[in-house]
């Protein structure tokens, strides 16, 4: 495999929300945790679930279902928290992402990516970086920089509305 080929293939961690499969760049993912008890932080938007204790550190958790406007469901054994590293206001912060289940690590070549459709997604397509094609259909590759930006997660502004 040539260097060019290697660099054109990126690895993604796929997870599910409702019936859809989503993907995050693997380089942004630190670890995957089982669902654990989350302490609610009051007076914050609903999608900000609260904080968890990650080996002595307090880490905020975002509920992707609420963020994408998908109705919430009971937690199952498959419910997971993906710990990602995001840059908020110039500082790297750990952020937990609550998802229905984690699937697999997937190689997606650059030429199998397609731009996101403008309509028919049911949620803000700004968050989608691309649609990755694979045998069984599409994976929605999320734009982590966008979705987990300070503006999107601004808890205070939202809570005052």
């Amino acid at each position, binding site marked *: 495999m040539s260097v060019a080929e290697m660099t054109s293939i990126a690895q993604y961690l796929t997870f599910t929300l409702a019936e859809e499969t989503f993907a995050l760049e693997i380089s942004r993912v630190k670890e995957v945790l089982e669902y654990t*008890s989350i*302490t*609610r*932080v*009051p*007076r*914050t938007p609903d999608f*900000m679930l*609260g*904080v*968890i*204790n990650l080996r*002595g*550190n*307090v*880490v*905020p958790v975002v509920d992707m279902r609420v963020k994408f406007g998908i109705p919430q469901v009971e937690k199952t054994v498959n419910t997971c928290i993906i710990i990602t590293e995001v840059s*908020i*206001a110039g*500082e790297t*912060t750990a*952020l937990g992402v609550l998802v229905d289940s984690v699937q697999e690590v997937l190689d997606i070549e650059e030429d199998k990516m397609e731009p996101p459709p403008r309509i028919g997604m049911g949620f803000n397509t700004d968050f989608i970086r691309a649609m990755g094609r694979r045998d069984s259909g599409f994976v929605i590759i999320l734009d982590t920089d966008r979705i987990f930006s*300070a503006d999107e*997660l601004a*808890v*205070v502004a939202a*809570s005052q509305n």
Partner: protein
Amino acid sequence: MAEQDDRFLNTFFEEAYEHLASFENTMLEIESVADNSELVGRAFRSLHTIKGSGAMFGLDDLSRFTHEVEAVFDLVRNGKLALSRPLADLALKAGDHIRCLLDVARAGGEANCDAGEALVAALKKVSTSSGARKADGADPATYRIRFAPATDIFLKGVNPLLLMAELRELGRCDVYAHTDNIPELDALDPESCDLFWDIIITTTRGIDAIKDVFLFLDEESEVRVDTIDDGSSSEISPDYKKLGAILSERGDVDSASLEQFINARKKIGEELVAAGVTASGKVESALMEQRHVREARASRAAEQGASIRVPLAKLDQLVNLVGELVIVQARISRLAQESDASPLLASMAEELERLTAELRDNSLGIRMVPIGGTFDRFRRLVRDLSGELGKDITMTTEGGETELDKTVIERLNDPLVHIIRNSIDHGIEAPDTREAAGKPRAGTVHLSASHSGPNVVIEISDDGAGLNADAIRAKAVERGLIAADSTLTNAEIFPLVFQPGFSTANKVTDVSGRGVGMDVVKRGIESLGGTAKIDSRPGEGTTIAITLPLTLAIIDGLLVEAGGESFVLPMQTVKECIELTRNDAAHSHGRRYINVRDSILPYMRLREWFGINGNSPDIEQIIVTEVGGRRTGIAVDRVVGEYQTVIKKLGNLYQDVEGISGATIMGNGNVALILDVRQLAAAVESQENEALAGR
């Protein structure tokens, strides 16, 4: 290798700057101290170290210049040159030049510090005008002198007191007078000297200088000088010989009888006296020697840097780890308290709790530094500013040994600078104005630090003109902060100066009044979890009191629950807990007030504030809190108890959530939120105001 060089070089710079700061402080201190020999010695040592290590790193400019300054201080140290104010000024300028050289050397550029040659010339002039240089002083050594003058010494015109005074000039002296030989009163001859003395002296001048003092005594007087601690030994333990050893070495008791008593294992001095082997005076004198040498060694140990330089990051890491240990310990303690736990586990958990608490206190203690260093830095600021403004201002300090977390002290620097500048610029009047007001020409800025419960209180007071309540009021009205017809007491008016952009000074000077005002000070202090209070009397001065927590990492908290969720209140804000029955709540007509011992207490419900669903229990608990002199009740479902709270940041996502200041991890591994009582109280107040406005 190069990397290692860098590291050494960094250490050198760090130390050099430190020595330089110490040198400057010493210069500033010297002016206000009468006996400054010790201070001069300290200044000399600082210079010497900078010179020596500078030469080692090939910083020839630095070492050459420092050498000149050192030469002058050598003269001062040997008493050949008096330390005058002009000399201190020169020394401070020299210090600035050394700093400049250090800065240049560190940045690696070309030297462009021009002051050097002029300073060298000035220094040379000072040093040559006062004679030749002397050899370097030796380490301080301690000597024992047994001085038993002949009884007819008075007749020969010798006054032992003068000899003793002469000895005192050589160094620190402890004197014990033996009265054993004094006869009964009827046999006493007032013209004969029946006393003899033991003198323990620590000096750098050597044994010959001591012998010189007794040079003119005839042979009938006994003078024995022994070196008991030559100060050169690398051993810096403050332990000194046992009492028995001292006595037998002096020949005051023979070793055979000593042996006997050591075996008896009682307090040896008392026993020896009781048995009549030696006189009580001799024992006391020996005890004095023991004490003297111990002290001398202890001070040497402190000087020889019985300390170690550690990067702050390592300490932070240590404190973090201890914080996690405290959490694990809390979990184990909880487990041990469960009914089916073995008693062995319970006792081990108890032991672990004790050790953890000690470890925590110790490791937090490492980060504590005395605030005196910060105070000393302001001495220069006060001196320079008062000179610039043509005012005569002295700075006095108190409680410099009070310790605070290093981070707190660092972040306190700017607010303090601001307050002091304000005091000097706006507070203290010009000398003529002061005189006209019947005050001394020289103004005073007083800095003090003291412990007050879990807090440290820092006060900055001046004896200046005080705040002008009318001007502040007018300004506040102009800025729309208060209504024009509102009646406010002074205590309500003064805090208005903490509002943004608030300055009553008419003119903008170079020193202060550049638009950034006391609001910056207040914000800085509040970010440290502290409070600032201001008090002032017209014509008498202004005092600003800053109350700060000792440390930022761990606090005592009160764990409470509301709707199954746990919260922690900082213990320092909690005054008491009272019950709120459903009846009480109903009788207050929906308004959030409760009567506590005939005073009205506004309160808030945590459930409502945080939108927690479900029914509250029949009896709620109201935590009475007090922040900034204002009492507010916070109603919760249940009080769990005291809780050692390791503060964790909520991260920048949650940093602006109103009413929450952080988080902590509880014994069961869950996260509990720490309430920001100040914000909650402010919210209650604004609710109240809204309610009033709505009626």
